[in-house]
């Protein structure tokens, strides 16, 4: 997967590039808004990581022009302002996702990866990770013959983890997808919920499935 990173802060561009390369992405970097349009003409990218605040032209106007030119490359917007209206504005301008700064690298990587998958994966009703299965139609979770009693929110949380097994889920994307909040709640709500979910699905079972990645988020894997 080939990704274009547009970020004027050289240091930030560098660690984003390193992180994406470590995950097996091919990464091109440019530091200026004006360079984007020429870059996308020369190369076909699978995704663009676009900072909003750029010298020359800001990310939103670059994005708008990209979409006007019928370029449908998935775009993840980065913003240092991280404010509600801006997110809506970005998505309206044609962005596929939005990530406020400062972000966890794992979160960025997960979202860039999701850009490539957008809309291509069928939503299977039966999810399976190891010996844990989740039936999204019957609303039932089961592990080695034991059925779990989950609240609606715990169910959505588990479903969210099970739809991206083995990948780190950042706090912010959990908040957005499971709680449908467009703000950072500033509480340890997610952590407490994950802890409870873990008590239900992991206590008394081996191997443990739900793991914490300090400073990044959570991952469900065998």
């Amino acid at each position, binding site marked *: 997967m080939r990704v274009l990173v547009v970020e004027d*802060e050289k*240091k*930030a561009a560098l*660690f*984003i590039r*390193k*992180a994406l390369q*470590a995950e097996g992405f091919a990464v091109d970097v440019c530091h200026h808004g004006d360079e984007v349009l020429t870059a996308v003409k020369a190369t076909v990218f699978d995704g663009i990581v676009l900072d909003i*605040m750029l010298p020359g032209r800001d990310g939103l106007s670059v994005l708008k022009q990209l979409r006007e030119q019928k370029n449908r490359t998935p775009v993840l917007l980065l913003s*240092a*302002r*991280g*404010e*509600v*209206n801006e997110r809506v504005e970005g998505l309206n301008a044609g962005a596929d996702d939005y990530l*406020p*700064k*400062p*972000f*966890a*690298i*794992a979160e960025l990587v997960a979202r860039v990866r999701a850009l490539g998958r957008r809309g291509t994966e069928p939503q299977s009703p039966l999810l399976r990770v190891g010996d844990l299965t989740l039936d999204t139609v019957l609303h039932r979770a089961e592990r080695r013959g034991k059925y779990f009693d989950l*609240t609606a*929110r715990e169910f959505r949380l588990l479903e969210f983890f099970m739809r991206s097994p083995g990948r780190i889920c950042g706090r912010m994307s959990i908040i957005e997808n499971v709680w449908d*909040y*467009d*703000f*950072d*709640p*500033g*509480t*340890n*709500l997610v952590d*407490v*919920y994950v802890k*409870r979910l873990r008590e239900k699905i992991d206590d008394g079972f081996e191997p443990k499935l739900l793991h914490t990645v*300090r*400073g*990044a988020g959570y991952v469900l894997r065998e």
Partner: protein
Amino acid sequence: MKIRTRLILWYATILIISLIVMGIGTYEEVAEQMEIEHRRHLWENALHETGEMVVSAGMPAVALGLLGGWWITRRAMRPVTALTEAVEKIHDRNLREQLPRTGNGDELDRLTEVFNTMTQRLDTSFQRIREFTLHASHELKTPLTIMRGELETALREENFTPVQKERLLCQIDEIERLAKIVDALTLLTKVDAGQVQLNFELVQLSDLVEESVADMKILAQPQNIQVKLNECEDISISGDRHRLRQLLLNLTDNAVKYNHLNGTITVSLRRNEGFGEIKISNTGAGVTPELQPRVFERFFRGDASHNSAIEGCGLGLSIAQWIVLAHLGTIQFVSEPNKLTTVTVRFPAIGGNSQRA
């Protein structure tokens, strides 16, 4: 006393004094006449004549004078009243609007001009403060992003001992905390600048309350706090779903954070005189009465020595207050130290006046 009343009173006094002067003058004139003509019953006649003159001619003149005076002062004061009303409408959001000037160059026109220059200067300095905070929050986020990124990259690439690793992870936690403060500050600055728009829609308040009670139960579990939902009537309001959730989560978080082990939280939503009223009460240390009026102030954190262990930045209630006011509601904070702290939020309910049997 109003200037107008004062002027009228002075004017009335002057008129009465002139009436008395007129009476004395008339009396002497009449007395002289009487002396020349008859030299009889001098005193009584002169007095009688004078009295008649004062009553029949003087009194109506005084009344007319007073009426005229009242009218003149009212006219003279009208521009002042208009100016007062215009100045009253000035607040920190509309400083850019100028007061209308008559342009006739009189004293009041000058005063208006001076007012206008003053509000202009105020507007400029308010603007400067807002811009400063907006830029500051943006300029702070970029280095925070880099710091966090560098730390994470180092953690992944370098081989650290567990102790070193823990230290770096603690740094990341602190960066995250700093970022949250900057976020909250940016939001409030944008609110001040009138740059945050709410998306109003029909919101079932009871659903949101039930949802936040569910979250509250989870958050309260580690401290073994009992959460009770006493009453939850079906109430709809016009509001921004996300902001209302943020409000409820803020209040929920406070009710748990400032509680004690084995404490309680009670929540209720009921209809009260056309308003949807949410009450959240929690046990805990509370806030002393003299500090209570300050709880909505930015960065207010009660007695800092007590709360240093509690995470938070002291902006939660400021944000809560903004959300409530933006929904034309009211928020009230009442605390009995070491007993019960209650936050009451009221929103205008839709169909609020219909009494259900």
